[in-house]
């Protein structure tokens, strides 16, 4: 059964939100949803870029009080 997981990468300069997501996706099962929380403005661009390149599914991108919430689904 698919799970929903949260990756709290606020304040992460190193390894950073995208690297945290990559590690999270490796550990997840196909169909799982992962929500990344990031205070890095660049995440709104570089996470979707990587998701598109690898072929996972970008579900939502929202910003609230300086925190980006980016949700993706592992597809393979």
């Amino acid at each position: 059964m698919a799970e929903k997981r949260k990756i709290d990468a606020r304040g992460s300069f190193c390894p950073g939100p995208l690297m945290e997501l990559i590690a999270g996706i490796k550990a997840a099962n196909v169909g799982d949803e992962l929500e990344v929380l990031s205070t890095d403005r660049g995440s709104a661009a570089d996470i979707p870029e990587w998701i598109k390149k690898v072929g996972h599914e970008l579900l939502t991108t929202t910003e609230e009080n300086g925190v980006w919430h980016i949700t993706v689904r592992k597809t393979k």
Partner: protein
Amino acid sequence: MKIVIVGGGMGGTILGNNLARRLHHELRTGKVRITMLSASDRHMYQPGLLYVAVGSMMPDELYRDQAGLLEPGIVFHVDPVENFMLDKRQVKTKSGAVHDYDVLVIATGSRAVMDSIPGLAENAETFYTEESAVRMLKRLRGFQGGRVVITVGVPHKCPMAPLEITFMLHDFFKERGIGDKVQLHYTYPIGRVHSLENVAKWAAPEFDRLGITYETLFNMKEVDGKTKTLTSEEGSSCKFDLLIAIPAHKGMEVVEKNGLGQNGWIPTNRTRLNMEGQENVFVLGDTTNLPISKAGSTAHFEAEALGENIAAMVKVGSPVRDYDGKVFCFIEAGKDRATYAMFNYTTPPDPKAPTRAVHWFKVAYNKLYWASARGLL
């Protein structure tokens, strides 16, 4: 109060010594007991493995006797924990001994997992263990030229290692007189050459200047030893004559077997450093799931904050400070120049141009580390 520290690496050792100094009186009067449970009687300075791989340190320089690093008053057992019984406030060791605790600290570290990528273990060199670093050195000494590919798994210990080994390999081959016969090619998982933006802004022009090529958004998928080809999750591939891996890491198996955290990473409060849902269980260093660098300095600064807090809990019944996410990493930029990056949860690093002075400070720190471990520096 019974304080049990599981793990005798950098975090556990610095914490134990910090606590023993702060609670000297309480230890002497029997109000506090500090017990350390470790898998080894030796303590390794893990950052030194990078230097072993290029022949500038010998393995025996990396070890000290663990008992000799600890303050008197710390009860030390070489008897690793196998069962965490958090509901009973007990841990059980390999020998069958059961230790009660009031405060538990888990600092068991992480391990490189070469077999997470098909073909990687059989076809790549790495330097995260003594054995692999020595093997890599021999391979480098015998290498006569060709394409050297550096590849990086996620997550990995020591975030500067990918850059450092690349710059050090450049100087290693140049010094051997075969620099013109070696093409270094660097790959990295995200869209720039390092996770820290300011470090990437410094490193990419350095790569260009030195003729080091690079490909970003490259996450290892598999290695074909017959065709000497590395392919990525992103669909690209590259040929190699020599493959150097910074492999993905996991936490220790005992963490996962006890259901404390997926892949061996324990969910941890980012400022108080307690295990989520456990007020009296704390986590240090690589073992946390915090989104910060898996590095010795992280364990060091966490241990200092936690030492202050646990001592304050003993003395006044309350912690006194938050861990602010502080990390400090040296960055070797070759065999004789280095810079550094310092940052926390709110302030990014701003690395300066590499200098010989910082390199020599790092060389000195490789010896001074033992004073750090003893809690003196």
